[in-house]
């Protein structure tokens, strides 16, 4: 007999709900400490360049400015990234996108801070910027990282795709494209760093992953992990956009040098400019089926631009590949994906990691197929749906908890009731 649950399944009031309706919840920008400094980043206004000279002296000389730092001031490692450590805290070798961080400033007031930033100048040696997938792959294109602009290539294969297509009654071919999107969480990124009473470097930040942040701050400052404490402030929405390092390392570096609390609050446009975006994708798809709507084969090619840094690109490419068939059993599948680096804004994690993009394709194909053979779109899905015992393109057998057909049936039932 199934046990009756006493707590789960119930709509309990949220543990942090009361403070949120009272307005007492502290988000990162709500923290203030005695002697606190205000910090901000000086950013590049070109997408691809080396820095010939950075003029920091005037800003440093300004009254009320407590630190103006560039990469020379980093005591530890100047690279972060959740999967591939390719993004600098402050640019050392070259600028790879508009808005790359060149210097950080801490000052006694936001007004002085603004004045100091206006005093910083930079001379660039510009490099041809790469803005398209195609250009990134050309032989004479400048290289953004390492030795190639190919970020990652993936190949997935099961069954015998070419043979299977020969036997299909119907083949549907399309090219889909999806665009670059922004999370637009309502709270712009923010954080504050300080040394706590035990002398521990502490960062309170709006984040989706405080333990990762801790490791990156420690590595930047050359400290053991347990000498850094990161506390997640109440976080005003994220959707994947607060998985990368935002202000954590910059704040911590300024506190490291000034020994004072430093708060950084990004403006809306700074936040949108430099946080990761959804990967735009081009997806070519060829789907083969029998006359009665059974899927036989699928071939998919995915191309995407991960922008200037890897961020969660490797997670997006892998997930997009695994999910590209949709929730259907297709015995013969071949998929290829290529992601490139460009000097565009960084693409990364955004609610779904590439699955919304491939869903536009696999569902577009299913709907086109249903129309072509004159079958109800729910029916054709049921016919091909994953169920217990289904074998995925990766060879995995589904053993439990596969409620797909029930979602189709329940949605159809409810739609019949409420849609016109």
């Amino acid at each position, binding site marked *: 007999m199934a046990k009756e649950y006493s707590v789960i399944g119930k*709509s309990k009031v949220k543990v942090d709900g009361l403070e949120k309706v*009272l*307005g007492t919840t502290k988000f990162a920008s709500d923290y203030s400490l005695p002697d606190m400094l205000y910090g901000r980043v000086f950013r590049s206004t070109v997408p691809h360049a080396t820095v010939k000279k950075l003029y920091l002296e005037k800003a440093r000389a300004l009254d009320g400015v407590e630190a103006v730092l560039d990469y020379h001031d980093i005591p530890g490692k100047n690279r972060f990234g959740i999967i591939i450590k390719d993004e600098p805290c402050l640019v050392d070798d070259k600028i790879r996108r508009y808005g790359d961080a060149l210097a950080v400033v801490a000052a006694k007031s936001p007004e002085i801070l603004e004045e100091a930033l206006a005093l910083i100048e930079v001379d660039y040696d510009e490099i041809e910027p790469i803005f398209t997938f195609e250009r990134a792959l050309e032989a004479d294109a400048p290289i953004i990282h390492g030795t190639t602009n190919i970020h990652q290539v993936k190949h997935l294969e099961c069954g015998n795709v070419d043979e299977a297509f020969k036997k299909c009654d119907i083949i549907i071919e399309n090219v889909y494209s999806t665009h670059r999107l922004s*999370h*637009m969480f309502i709270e*712009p990124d923010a954080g504050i760093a300080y040394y706590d009473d035990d002398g521990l470097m502490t960062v309170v930040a709006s984040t989706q992953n405080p333990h990762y942040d801790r490791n990156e701050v420690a590595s930047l400052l050359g400290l053991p992990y347990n000498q850094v404490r990161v506390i997640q402030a109440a976080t*005003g*929405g994220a959707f994947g956009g607060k998985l990368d390092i935002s202000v954590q390392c910059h704040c911590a570096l300024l506190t490291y040098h000034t020994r004072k609390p430093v708060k950084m609050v990004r403006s809306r446009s700074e936040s949108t400019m430099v946080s990761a975006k959804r990967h735009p994708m081009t997806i070519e798809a060829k789907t083969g089926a029998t006359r009665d709507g059974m899927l036989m084969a699928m071939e998919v090619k995915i191309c995407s631009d991960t922008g200037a840094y890897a961020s969660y690109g490797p997670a997006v490419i892998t997930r997009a590949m695994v999910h590209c068939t949709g929730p259907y059993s297709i015995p013969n599948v071949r998929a290829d994906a290529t992601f490139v680096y460009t000097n565009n804004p960084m693409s990364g994690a955004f609610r779904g990691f590439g699955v919304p993009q491939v869903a536009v394709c696999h569902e577009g194909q299913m709907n086109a197929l249903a129309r072509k053979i004159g079958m109800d779109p729910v029916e054709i899905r049921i016919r091909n749906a994953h169920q217990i015992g289904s074998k995925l393109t990766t060879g995995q057998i589904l053993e439990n908890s596969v409620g797909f057909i029930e979602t189709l049936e329940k949605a159809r039932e409810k739609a019949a009731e409420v849609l016109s």
Partner: protein
Amino acid sequence: MNKISISLNLNGEDRVIDVFPNRRVVDLLREDFKLTSVKEGCSEGECGACTVIFNGDAVTTCCMLAGQADQSTIITLEGLAKNGELDVLQQCFLDEGAVQCGYCTPGMILTAKALLMKNSSPTEEEIKVGMSGNLCRCTGYEKIHAAVKNAVEIYKQKLEQGGESIG
């Protein structure tokens, strides 16, 4: 630039402060009066996170200068709960699950409050139009609408029982 003296009634208390005339009201409230329930999301009057009740209207404070606040009456979310008791709207937001990240919540509740102070029994359409200046990226707004509708009902019952009015 010289500082000017501003007098205002803030959450029921008369306050006087000297500020630069170009200080934004959002900074006046958050920095000078430490009322951090007032949030900043866009700084261009688009998101509604910085909404307060200003002379009875829901107003965004990120594009408003301190001078405009002189002789005004301002209510922030800190001023809504009375003697530790939640305002009906606060209770309804909590009970309906209208709060996810909570960053839009202060502005949402205050916009609804200002709306109900003017019109104690708004229609569904009036609620929607009245709240359309406040963005929420988390909830899809459904539970926010439900919370406001519930609050309207509860206020109505209270009024019928001769209880307190909304303002």
